[in-house]
Each structure stands twice: as C-alpha cells, then as structure tokens.
C-alpha cells in the first residue's frame, strides 16, 4: 500500500486472474461483469465444486469466495483451494455477523474478508492488495 508505484501496476500491466465463487448466480454474474469491466480476468464458479475444478484447470492469482454456499461449506472449499495452490490469495465474502467464520477463514490462510453486500471499490481494493501480497512473496 505504501508503495505508490506498485499500486496501479497490475491494472496497467498483466491482468489479475480472478476466480469468483458464489452460488447466487445473479450476484456472480453482475460482479463478474463489473470486475471484468475493470480489466480483471474473471472466471465464475457457481459452487465449491466448480471452484475446485476451475483451480484444477488453471492457476489464479486471487479467489473471491462466498463462505455461505449450499453445496459446500466455504471454509472447506478454502482449505481445499489453499491445499491445491498455496500461492492462491483468497478474499472471503461473508454475511453480516459471521465474524467467527471469517476469523477461522483467516486462520486457514485467507488474505482478507468482506461482509456482503459490499461496495465494489472496496472489493476491488482488497483484490489488488491480495495480488500485491502475492507479487511480493
């Protein structure tokens, strides 16, 4: 964050490869559209399973993961994704009042979390921050 020169680098340089995981299709689509519009390389996954398959197929820089999904527990998905790709940065989306789950997610290797519904700019900032972290390591 402190380094001003690196802040805009991803947007101008290589695209951030983003995996968007949410079982709420309407939200998933519009978020993917908006983030795509902001020059992110977005892949959508409608469930935990799809997310795992997507990570198996290709590498991602950052994953935005909804913790509350019907098929699998978000924390479980997080653990599996981190196992598959330890370098993957994960930003969690949680419902309000799920601080406990968020903290557990942080312990399991997530980079950050946001409560839904969230401002797009905020989410974008979290994604970029996670990406910068990945670049640094």
């Amino acid at each position: 964050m402190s380094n001003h020169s690196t802040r805009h680098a991803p947007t101008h340089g290589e695209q951030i490869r983003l995996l968007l995981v949410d079982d709420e299709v309407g939200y998933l689509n519009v978020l993917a559209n908006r983030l795509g519009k902001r020059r992110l390389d977005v892949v959508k996954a409608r469930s935990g399973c799809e997310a795992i398959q997507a990570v198996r197929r290709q590498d991602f820089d950052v994953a935005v993961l909804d913790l509350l999904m019907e098929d699998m527990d978000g924390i479980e998905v997080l653990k599996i994704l981190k196992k598959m790709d330890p370098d993957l940065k994960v930003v969690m989306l949680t419902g309000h009042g799920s601080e406990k789950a968020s903290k557990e997610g942080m312990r399991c290797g997530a980079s950050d979390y946001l409560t839904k519904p969230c401002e797009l700019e905020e989410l974008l900032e979290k994604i970029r921050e996670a990406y910068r972290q990945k670049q640094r390591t």
Partner: protein
Amino acid sequence: MRFPKRRRPSENRYYQSLTRRMVLIIIFVSITPMILVSGFILSEFRTSYQAKIYDHLGELVLKKKQNIDSFLWEKLSDIRYVAATNSYQDLVYEDFIQEELHILRREFDTVFEDLGVVNADGLQLAYAGPFELEYADYSKAEWFTSAIQTEYHISDVFTGLRGKPHFIVTVRNIWEGKHWILRATIDFLSFNTLLEKLRIGQTGFAIILNQYGEYQTKPFFKNIKINNKNLYQFMKQSQQTPKGVHIVERKEPDGQRNIYVGSFLKGGEWLLVYQQNKDDAFSDLRHAQNIALIIIVVSALIIIAMAVLLSMKMVARIQVSDREKEIMNQQVIETGKLASIGELAAGIAHEINNPVAIMVEEAGWIEDLLAEEDLASCENLTEFQRALHQIRMQGRRCKEITHKLLSFARKTDSSVQDVQVNDLITEVVNLSVQKAKYANVDIVTDLDPSLPAIQMSYTEGQQVMLNLINNALYALESKDGRGRVEVQTRRNAGDIHIDVIDNGTGIPAAILPRIFDPFFTSKPVGKGTGLGLSICYGIINKLGGEIDVESEQDRGTHFQIRIPTAPSEKPGTDACGDGMAVEKTA
C-alpha cells in the same frame, strides 16, 4: 399518561379463600384442644366442688340435728328429774309447783315457760306459768292422748289453748294406781334460736317439720314458699348417706332448683331440713366458672385475631412470591420469544442481503455501462445517474438496517461478559432511531468515552435500555411538536451513571411510586404486561445498582441508573433475568 391499576378479581378471590382456609384451620387446631381441656377440667372441678358442698351441708345438718336432739332430751331429763324428786302431793300444790318452775328456770334455762300437773282424765290440777290455765281440760288434746300412753313424750308444735305456738314435754307417773302427767311447755322462741344460726348465703335456711309437714320452727323468711306437704315423705324415701343425712335436689314448680339436706330427729317424728337455692349454694362455683369462661373467650378472641393476622401476613408473602414467580415465568417466556425473533430476523436479514447486493451491483453495472456509451447528447443522462445513485444509496440503507437487526439478534445469549455500556446504548439507539423518526422524536446521546467495561449480560442491558427508550417514545407519542430523548452516560466515583431523559407528558405524582411494581401498566389491556419497568428494576438490582425516576407533569421524565463497576455481591447469571421482548411500559 394514565396509570390504571390492573385488577385481578379471580386472583384476589383465590387469595381470600386461601386466607379464610388458613384462618379456619389455625382456629380449629388451637381452639378445639383448649375447649376440650378446659371443659374437662371444669366438669371435674364442678363434680368435686359439688361433693364438697354436699359434704359440708350434710355435716352442718347432722351437727344441728344432734344439737336439737340433745336439747330435747335435756329438757325431758329436767322434767323427769322434777317428777322423780317430787311427789304428786307436793306438786299439786300451787305454791310448790311455782317454786319448782322458778328453780327450773333458774338452774337450767328460761326455755321452760310453764309447768303443770295433769291427772289421768286430762284435768290440769296444778299450774305454774304466765297463763290462766288452772283446771284446764286437756282430755281432748292430741298431746294428752299420746302422752298418757307413753312414759315420756315430746309433742309437736301447736297453738293450743293459749293461742301461741309451743310444744310440750311430758313425763307420766303413777300415784295410787292412777297415771298422772307432769308437763312443761318449751318456749318456742328459744327453741327457734337453735335453728336461726343455720343460715348460709342468700337463701339457705333450716326448718323442722313434723310428719304431717307442719312447721315445728318458724321459717326464717316470712314469705318462704316451701312445698312442705310432701317434703317429709319425699325425704324419707330418698337415699341417705352413711351418716344418716338425706341430700336431694328438686326442681320446684317455679323452675328453680333447690337443694334439700335433711335429717330425722326425735326418733324419726321430726325432720330437720335445710333448704337452699342451688344457684346460691354454688355461687362460688358459678363465679369461678364465669371467670374461666371469660378467660376462654378472651383467649379464643386472641387466637382468632392472631390467626387472622398470621394468615394475612403469610398469604401476603405467598402473593409476593407468586408474583415473583410469575415475573420469572414471564421473563423465561419473553427470553424464548426474543431468541426466536432474533433467529427469524437473522434469517430474513441474510435472505434480504443477497437480493439487495444484486440490486446494488446491477445498478453499478448500469453506471459502468452508461459511462461507456456516448450519451453526452442524452437529455436524461443526469436523471439516469441520479436514479442509479439513489438505488445504490437505498441499497446501502437496507444493508445498514439488516446489519443492525443481525447484530441485535446475534446477542440474545444471557451469559455474563464484559460489556461496553456506550456500545450497547449506541446499538439500542440505532435500532430505535427509525421508530423515533416516525414518532417525530430526536434521540440524542451524550456518552462519556472513559466508561469502563462492566460484567453483565448483554441481552439484559439491551432490555433495560430498550424498555426505557420505548417508554420515552410512548410518552412522546401524544406530544405536539418535536420530542427529544436524551441518553447520557458518565462516570462517578467507581459507578456508571446512565440517564434517560425525555420531555414527554411526565408521570403523575400519585402513581410515581408504583411504576416499578409488577403488572402496573398505563396502557390499554393487551398492550402492555406491566412488567417492563419491574424487569428493568430486577436487572439493575441484580447488578447491585439502582434505578430511580423523577418526573414532572408536562415537563418530562428522567430515569437515572447507577451501576457499580466493581463486581457486585449478586452476580446476575441466572436465566430468569434474560432477554425480554421490547416492552412499552410506562
């Protein structure tokens, strides 16, 4: 604000009947043994007292009888002595017999009224005495017919020739083969004095009757009504004691009960009878009985008074504990309600969050797309942008609302934890802001940031603040113009002070002392349980704090809460004081 007292007639009836039952049981178990024991003692006492009285009277009568008998035989002996020591020839001389009477009266007694010698034909040959009875003819007199046949004779009392009651003692002798009689008259009055002394109480007296029921002594009472006709026979037939005394009790025709104690004298011819009214004879007993009765009645009254007092006190305590129990039950129910409302709200908030998020994002998407279009010439561009901005704004509001709901619902557990009072107040105020807006009320907070955390149940704290703020809003509902509720916190010597001040209608002074009473409500039936403030009171009390109220009509109400920061002696951990649904109770 009106504060009618909620009446519970059926409940009152229950407690009244409970009081009645307790009173009756206490009275029954304490008075019954008292009456049984005193009745037993009294009856035993009466029996022995009666026996004592009868014994005493029997003794008296027996003594008197012996007195009279010996008196009579003494007089007879005197006459016999005169007859034996003097000859017939001497006695028929007037002067001699006068002298003999004189000697008798001097040596023995003045009871001898006169002295006379009567021959076998009933003719009085010589006479000494106050009456003119020389040569009186007694041949037809009853006493003479009896006297001539026996050696000694004592006659019944009769009036005779002199027209005065008297009786005669005679001794029969023989001179020249013919019977003659020496007779002496006994002074009736002197004889009477023998009995006069036998007087007890108001009605006790003695008389002597002959076998025909005629008086042998003068009754002490002039207007005495003694049913003497049958008395002699009646007494004769009655049982006698080993000492020869007859004691009977008889109901007289006038309804009075009399005691008769009799003894036969003069060889069974006369009856000495002592009569006394039973009530009079037992007046001491009756007196004692009356005193005992008064003591019993007074004790019974004291027992009844104590029973009533005790039962009322006990029932009052039962009533209080029943109420406390009811409040606890109510609290448990309300806690359950709040928990389910919390769960429901949390579920709904989660459900709403997703559509709202989609709406907000879709609006953002349109904005994104609009930015790409060349709409410089589009007249409505600014209007589009404004509308989209509005959608996003309202979406954010929805989010805030659901967040408040969720954060409230999340904290429905009753465990004691470190609670920041300021945070708690902020949260409750945030929740009430919307409601306040509709009621045209501003909620202002003035919170001291230096407040320490205190150990309490978060839910209970929420409940207290919600109740107070809701009450304030209720009090401001009917107010014209803008209402104002101020919530202040400050620290003071180790205590936390919370003030909730409104400028509403105020609470009438008459009911101010009762607003913390359970079931006391100012609201229409069905709107308030009357428990809100009493629960607040209970929660604050549990924390070792105090809740106070000041109110002025039309000026507003000021609730003051003081909570010590040091752990109180009564840590509030029991489940009863837990969260309670919002209650609008004045």
